[in-house]
């Protein structure tokens, strides 16, 4: 590994920690410009990292210079780099959006909380140590819960407490898994453990894998652990919902993927079919509940539950380098961009109409056309129409399913796309209705509309540049 003057890996963690603490120092409600500057630098670093690893292969940064298993290692391979790019690329427009949003709606402490959230995400994607992953998971959960509860309303506090309890129980299960692994192997470093876990590991390893998997599934809101997500994501402020649905739930999915491909790969077969079935159930149930939602943000939140199901469909189809893995990552990235755009658009629509239910949307098509267009573009990804990233992901998934002869999955995937079309069109139809005479629309800052549009366009056009993302994924 050649020495680089600027090694992006640790800076991607140090930078957000720094601006988050400085934002706290600056005082309540301050820190927006600092955040945007920091995020711009982080996006540049993430791009630099992607370029570096495409040229030189996966990179490792040994923290403290000690090296695993004594110290902690940071690992950046294609998968990590893709998730880092997603995080920074979603967070920067959302920061601009949030700054405009919170000029209209009062807030305290959003910026430090968001900063720690992003630091936790970056640290999680780069970590190569099981216990360090636990600490980053906790950092992530606490930041997310704090953001959900922001604003001090009782309903949000209830949703936040439920989210926190589920999250803490899940982390407790994960920690017990780490304890068992340490007891068996004497190390928690992923690189050290991977060759040690053979085809017939002791019972403790099976239990550890099971505990860690269930914990992570609960954090990713896979059926039947999905009950905390709609109130939490549907009730929070729009920028918060966007960050949570787009990024936070992807982190625990990333960990499931990383563990299935790495340390626990001999054990992964056992759970693969259950994950696939739960994913299929999530797609169908989540889409159905989205279709029946009355409030805009609950519709989008249930849509998240449904779209997360696609991520788990890949597990029964997973082979070493096959299209299933690529489909999963592409879906994660495309959905991240699209869902962020959708929540951003929902926030604009709610500010504009002053109400949060679908009926209140009538007539908004004339007032906020950019936003509605953004909503539609995001919907294109969810439906899986070309040239969006969602289309590419579903195409790869169908390809993987047909290659292995599992056509029932294909039926589920296509049904999911049709149901997504149904609930997206439900929103659009409402918006194009004529406004009743009593309707009053507020002015919404332009920055909000255009950042939503930017995110949506990115997700819709992702398919055109999808090949490069897949190349990145192939590294490491």
């Amino acid at each position: 590994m050649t020495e680089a003057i600027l090694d992006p890996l640790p800076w991607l963690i140090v930078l957000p920690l720094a601006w988050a603490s400085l934002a706290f120092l600056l005082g309540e409600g301050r820190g927006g410009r600092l955040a945007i500057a920091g995020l711009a630098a982080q996006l540049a670093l993430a791009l630099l990292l992607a370029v570096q690893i495409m040229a030189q292969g996966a990179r490792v940064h040994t923290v403290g210079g000690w090296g695993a298993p004594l110290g902690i290692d940071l690992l950046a391979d294609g998968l990590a780099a893709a998730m880092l790019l997603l995080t920074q690329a979603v967070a920067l427009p959302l920061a601009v959006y949030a700054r405009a949003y919170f000029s209209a709606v009062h807030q305290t402490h959003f910026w430090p909380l968001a900063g720690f959230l992003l630091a936790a995400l970056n640290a999680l994607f780069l970590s190569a140590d099981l216990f360090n992953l636990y600490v980053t998971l906790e950092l992530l959960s606490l930041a997310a819960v704090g953001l959900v509860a922001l604003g001090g309303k009782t309903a949000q506090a209830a949703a936040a407490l439920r989210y926190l309890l589920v999250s803490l129980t899940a982390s407790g299960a994960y920690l017990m898994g780490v304890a068992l692994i340490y007891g068996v192997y004497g190390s928690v470093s992923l690189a050290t453990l991977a060759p040690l876990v053979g085809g017939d590991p002791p019972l403790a390893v099976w239990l550890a894998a099971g505990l860690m998997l269930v914990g992570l599934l609960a954090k990713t809101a896979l059926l039947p652990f999905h009950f905390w997500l709609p109130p939490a994501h549907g009730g929070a402020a729009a920028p918060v919902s966007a960050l949570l649905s787009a990024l936070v739930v992807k982190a625990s999915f990333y960990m499931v993927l990383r563990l299935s491909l790495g340390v626990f790969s001999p054990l992964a077969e056992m759970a693969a079919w259950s994950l696939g079935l739960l994913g299929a159930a999530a797609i169908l149930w989540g889409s159905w509940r989205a279709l029946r939602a009355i409030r805009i943000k609950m519709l989008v939140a249930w849509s998240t539950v449904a779209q997360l199901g696609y991520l788990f469909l890949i597990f029964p189809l997973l082979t070493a380098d096959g299209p299933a893995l690529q489909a999963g990552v592409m879906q994660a990235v495309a959905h991240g961009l699209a869902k962020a755009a959708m929540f951003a658009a929902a926030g604009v629509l709610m500010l504009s109409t002053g109400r949060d239910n679908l009926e209140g949307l009538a007539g908004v098509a004339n007032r906020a056309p950019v936003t509605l267009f953004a909503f539609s573009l995001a919907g294109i990804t969810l439906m899986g129409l070309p040239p969006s990233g969602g289309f590419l992901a579903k195409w790869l998934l169908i390809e993987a399913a047909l290659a292995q002869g599992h056509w029932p999955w294909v039926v589920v995937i296509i049904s999911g796309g049709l149901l997504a079309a149904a609930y997206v069109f439900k929103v659009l139809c409402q918006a194009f209705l004529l406004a009743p005479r009593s309707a009053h629309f507020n002015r919404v800052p332009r920055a909000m509309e255009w950042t939503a549009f930017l995110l949506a366009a990115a997700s819709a056009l992702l398919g055109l540049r999808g090949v490069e993302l897949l190349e990145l994924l192939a590294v490491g």
Partner: protein
Amino acid sequence: MNAPARLAVVGFALALAGVLAAAVLDLPAAAVDLRAAVAKKLSASGVEHPVTAVLLNFRGYDTLLEVAVLLLALLGMLAVAKPEAAAPAPPAADPMLRTLSSVAVPLMILAAGYLLWAGAHRPGGAFQAGAVLAAAAVLLHLAGRLPAWASPSRVLRLGLAGGFLVFLSVAAILLAQGALLRYPPEHAGTLILLIEAGLTLSLGLILAGLFLVLARRPAPPRAGGGEEGKS
């Protein structure tokens, strides 16, 4: 939750305990032995106690994130607060408690200082010292000498975040010179003591804050509306 479901959960918990116990009793010998690795590198770590060395040097990155978690929890608590919660007066002072606090608090501060210094050679260090300082703050609050926090002032925020920022700055400077948190062996002891000192103060404040923010009395219900608040 109805009775059959409750029974199912209890049964599941018992089964889980049984299976875990069986697994724990049946463990093979560990493949990797970190004790030898720690012992070998202890002299290069800057401290003499192996747990402190692991905590602040070998796995110092975990400690950095952990302090962030604490700071974040305090932030979350401040964010959760209802907007109009007023800063309440301290509770009525009990004379015995006041006397106790006058005697105990200086001793506790001294003990914290000792724990901080002792961490290099025996069990101790920044977290333990910070916890003792926080306990002193709680005692002062109970004795009526320290009010609960409403919204921390700029100086207080500096104290809260200062330790973390010192740690982060040292990490960043070392990063610019090589790897993250790679202490040069000849300065490792001093740097670790510096970081721990900053952490002691900040952790004491943060842990005290976790209590003192919770100690706020909720604002009284508005006349003529709203439900009775339970505290």
